[in-house]
């Protein structure tokens, strides 16, 4: 009983090494099979729970009409702009707070306080201030990305080994050089972790904002489909969210993490 399973596992490992995309896809096969089974048993009406093929054909239709790609582009552009702005504020701020003891003592409680007011908890008041529009959405994303990046950058800067700073000083490095040659690279693994978290939260916050505020985007697509009663379309939206995050995380963020912290032995896998 064990031997054939081991053999199968061996094949699986070999094939996934050759085609890494398989490793991302195969684990979902049992889930899809289960889904098909439940649908075919007819427990729920089709209009409530469409099967994989219904969803696939709906996705294809949306893609064909260009709606899916347009909305996807809108969502991604919003995330990119919000995340870039968030990082542009968060990294310098985190470095400053991390280097400056007084700034740290003063700002840490404030950071924790505002971090606790979750992204979408801001939506009601933002709607009052800025109305249903891009400003509200951008604010939510920037806000969501900001805190994980600031907090992790502060942590990263503060945990750079003091000997490394001393070594650099004794080798004649100026304060500016120490910042760029020692403190920033030393904090980089933490900064990347912050980014990874921030983008993850930001992506979720964006969908929530689009559902409430949106006139386009994946979140809007899903909510609009609810109005039209198309469960297929809702499921298409959900699948797109998962796939997209998988791509961003495993093809963009994880490789950066491997090339820096893990390569330098700063984080163990």
């Amino acid at each position, binding site marked *: 009983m064990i031997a054939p399973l081991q053999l199968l596992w061996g094949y699986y490992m070999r094939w996934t090494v050759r085609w890494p995309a398989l490793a991302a896809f195969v684990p979902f096969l049992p889930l899809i099979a289960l889904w098909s089974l439940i649908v075919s048993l007819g427990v729920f009406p089709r209009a409530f729970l469409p099967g994989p093929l219904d969803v696939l054909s709906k996705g294809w239709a949306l893609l064909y009409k260009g709606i899916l790609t347009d909305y996807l582009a809108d969502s991604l552009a919003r995330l990119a702009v919000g995340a870039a702005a968030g990082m542009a504020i968060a990294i310098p701020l985190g470095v400053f707070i991390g280097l400056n003891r007084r700034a740290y003592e003063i700002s840490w409680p404030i950071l924790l306080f505002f971090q606790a007011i979750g992204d979408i908890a801001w939506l009601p008041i933002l709607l009052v201030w800025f109305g249903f529009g891009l400003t509200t959405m951008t604010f939510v994303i920037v806000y969501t990305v900001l805190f994980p990046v600031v907090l992790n950058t502060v942590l990263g800067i503060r945990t750079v*080994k003091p*000997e*490394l700073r*001393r*070594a*650099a*000083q*004794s*080798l*004649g*490095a*100026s304060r500016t*050089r120490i910042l760029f*040659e*020692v403190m920033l*690279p*030393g904090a*980089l693994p933490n900064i990347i972790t912050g980014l990874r978290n921030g983008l993850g939260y930001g992506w979720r916050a964006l969908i929530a904002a689009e559902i409430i505020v949106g006139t386009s985007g994946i979140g809007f697509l899903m909510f609009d489909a609810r109005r039209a009663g198309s469960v297929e379309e809702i499921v298409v939206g959900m699948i797109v969210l998962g796939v997209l995050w998988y791509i961003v995380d495993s093809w963009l963020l994880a490789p950066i993490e491997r090339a*820096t912290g893990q*390569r*330098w*032995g*700063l984080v163990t896998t």
Partner: protein
Amino acid sequence: MKSLVLENLSKTYFDPYRGTQFTAIKDVSLQVGEGDFVAVVGPSGCGKSTILNMIAGFVPISGGRILVDGHQVKGPGPDRGVVFQSHALFPWKTVAENVTFGPKMRGVGKAERARIADEYLALAGLSHAAERYPNELSGGMQQRVGVVRALANNPDVLLMDEPFASVDAQTRMTLQEELTRIWEERRPTVVFITHDVSEAVFLANRVVVLSKGHVLAEVAVPLARPRSWTRLVEDDGFKALSNQVLQLVRSA
């Protein structure tokens, strides 16, 4: 390489939580001539690291003066190279980049830096590891890089705080022989902290025994050079000196 003078040096630590004071160094005076090799030994907690950290400029002094080449020390600077026990190599820089960090900070160009890396890595027997990252090296190799990183910056004084304490006994002997060879070749001014009496006698021209924050004794080490463990291990002069220093440390 230039001389180092400590004049009536003292250090009192304040404990802000308890509001108490502790005098770790009381009135230490010491002269290290240009090209000299002085080892400082003493029991744990006698203030060895405190002295070295004051010379390096990492901790402020409470009294007295520290002069390097006649200039008073104010904070860390490239005139005093430091080799750390925990090697303190930059994990995100290759071995070659670590070794040429000091020259880079001085604005030395790329071609010259490559030459410096070649020269000093050859000196440490590490030419093959130039492009590796520190976490890909053994503990002994990391310490070698730490030593030549400090040397490559041409400091007036080389400060070493138990640099070989965390490697195994075999590797430690090899590193001691290599350091002796490098010193005999280049004659840097060295202050070497250790709690290992035979290491101090093997390496130094002079051993300073520290006790509870003051200098208990200075012992000259007139052993012939070049020194190697194969010769010194059975050498009567070496044994006698080691014994003498050991007695002093134990009485400290």
